[in-house]
C-alpha cells in the first residue's frame, strides 16, 4: 500500500524548508541527491514519475539565468576580478544600478549559490509531484477546502500533467519517425503539449464540478462567511508566520501558531456542514507518518541550527565545509527508501 499523498508533500516541503535555510552548495547538493535517490527508489510507474528530472532541468535554467543576470547587472563585488565587460553609462538618477562592468569571482560564486538554492527548492516540489498521486491527494482535501479545491487541484496537477503530455507527444513523434531534437523539437511539441495539458485540466475541473465540488447551494451565508474568514485568516497568518520563520528562526512562531489554530478551526467548521463519504480513503499509516516526519525532521534540524557553515563566506572566497548536524538531518530524509520501496 502506498503512503498518503500528503505525506510526500510534507516530506518534500520539509526538504524545501531545509534548503531555504542554507546557501552551502554541499548541503544543497546533498538535498538534491537525497530527493533524487528517494524519487528513483519510491516512484510508482506513473506518467508523472519523470517530473523530478524536468524540475532539475528547470533548476539548471534558473542557475544559468541567475549567473547571467549577475554578470550583466552586477551585485556582490569582490577583489578577484575575472573579466571586465564594457559598462553602459547611466544617468545620475540611476545611481546604484550598473549594466556591464567588472565581474568578480566572489560575486559569481554568490550568484551560483543563490541560483542553486532556488533550483533546490524547485526540485523538492518536483520530487513531491513525481511521488504523490495528485488525484488521491484531491480526495484527501479537507471538506472546508472543497470550495477552492478546483483551483488547488488544477494548480497541483499542472506540472504532472505537463510532463505526462510531453511524454506522450514525444512518443507519438518518435513513432512517426520524427527525430528532431533541440529547439525545432520544442517548437513542434509546445502547442500540442500545452493544448493537451489544458484539455486534461478542463476535464478534471468538469469531473469535479459534476461531483459537487464548489457547491454552495443550501449553505447559509453566515456559515459560508465564517468558514471563509477563518480559513483565509488562518492561511494568511500561516504564510506570514512561515515567512518570519524562514527569515529569522524565532519571530515567526506566534503568527504560525495563531494561523494554524485559525485554519484548523475553519476546517473543522467547514467539515461540519459538508457531509461526504469517501470510498477507500487514504489512511495516515505509520509508514506515511514516518515519510512525512523524515522530511520535517531535516527542516527542524536546519531551522534550529546556528552552524556558520550553513552560509559559507564568499568575500573572502572560502571552500564550503559540510556541517555535520545539518547534513545528518538531511540524510534522515532518506528514510522513505527503507519505508517505501517500489518493487
Amino acid at each position, binding site marked *: 500500500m502506498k503512503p498518503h499523498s500528503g505525506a510526500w508533500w510534507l516530506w518534500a516541503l520539509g526538504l524545501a524548508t531545509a534548503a531555504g535555510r542554507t546557501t552551502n552548495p554541499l548541503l544543497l*547538493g*546533498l538535498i538534491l*541527491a537525497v530527493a533524487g*535517490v528517494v524519487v528513483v*527508489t519510491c516512484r510508482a*510507474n506513473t506518467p508523472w514519475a519523470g517530473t523530478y528530472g524536468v524540475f532539475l532541468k528547470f533548476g539548471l535554467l534558473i542557475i544559468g539565468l541567475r549567473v547571467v543576470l549577475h554578470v550583466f547587472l552586477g551585485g556582490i563585488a569582490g577583489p578577484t576580478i575575472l573579466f571586465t565587460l564594457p559598462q553602459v553609462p547611466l544617468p545620475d538618477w540611476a545611481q546604484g544600478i550598473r549594466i556591464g562592468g567588472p565581474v568578480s569571482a566572489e560575486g559569481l560564486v554568490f550568484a551560483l549559490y543563490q541560483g542553486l538554492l532556488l533550483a533546490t527548492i524547485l526540485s523538492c516540489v518536483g520530487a513531491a509531484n513525481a511521488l504523490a498521486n495528485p488525484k488521491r491527494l484531491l480526495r484527501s482535501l479537507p471538506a472546508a477546502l472543497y470550495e477552492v479545491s478546483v483551483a488547488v487541484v488544477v494548480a497541483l496537477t499542472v506540472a504532472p500533467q505537463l510532463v505526462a503530455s510531453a511524454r506522450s507527444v514525444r512518443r507519438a513523434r518518435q513513432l512517426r519517425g520524427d527525430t528532431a531534437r533541440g529547439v525545432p523539437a520544442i517548437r513542434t511539441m509546445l502547442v500540442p503539449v500545452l493544448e493537451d495539458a489544458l484539455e486534461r485540466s478542463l476535464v478534471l475541473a468538469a469531473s469535479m464540478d459534476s461531483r459537487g465540488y464548489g457547491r454552495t447551494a443550501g449553505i447559509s451565508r453566515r456559515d459560508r462567511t465564517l468558514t471563509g474568514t477563518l480559513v483565509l485568516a488562518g492561511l494568511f497568518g500561516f504564510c506570514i508566520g512561515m515567512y518570519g520563520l524562514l527569515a529569522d528562526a524565532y519571530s515567526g512562531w506566534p503568527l504560525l501558531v495563531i494561523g494554524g489554530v485559525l485554519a484548523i478551526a475553519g476546517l473543522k467548521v467547514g467539515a461540519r456542514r459538508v457531509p461526504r463519504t469517501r470510498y477507500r480513503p487514504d489512511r495516515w499509516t505509520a509508514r506515511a507518518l514516518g515519510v512525512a516526519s523524515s522530511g520535517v525532521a531535516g527542516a527542524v534540524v536546519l531551522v534550529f541550527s546556528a552552524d556558520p557553515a550553513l552560509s559559507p563566506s564568499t568575500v573572502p572566497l572560502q571552500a564550503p565545509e*559540510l556541517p555535520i548536524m545539518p547534513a545528518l538531518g538531511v540524510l534522515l530524509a532518506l528514510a522513505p527508501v527503507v519505508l517505501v520501496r517500489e518493487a
Partner: protein
Amino acid sequence: MAGETSAVVAEKARQTVEKPGSGWLWTATGALLIAALVVAGLLVARRRRAAEDE
C-alpha cells in the same frame, strides 16, 4: 572586543579563515557523500528501467 587592536582582530579573522586541514576534509567528505548518493540513484534508476523494459 573593545580593548583589541585592529591588528589582533585581523589576525583572529585570518586564523578563522585559514583553518589548516580540517576544512578541506569536510569539503571532500561532502562531495564524496553527494557522489555516492548520485551513483546509488543512477544504479537504482537503471535497474528499475531494465525491470520495466522486460
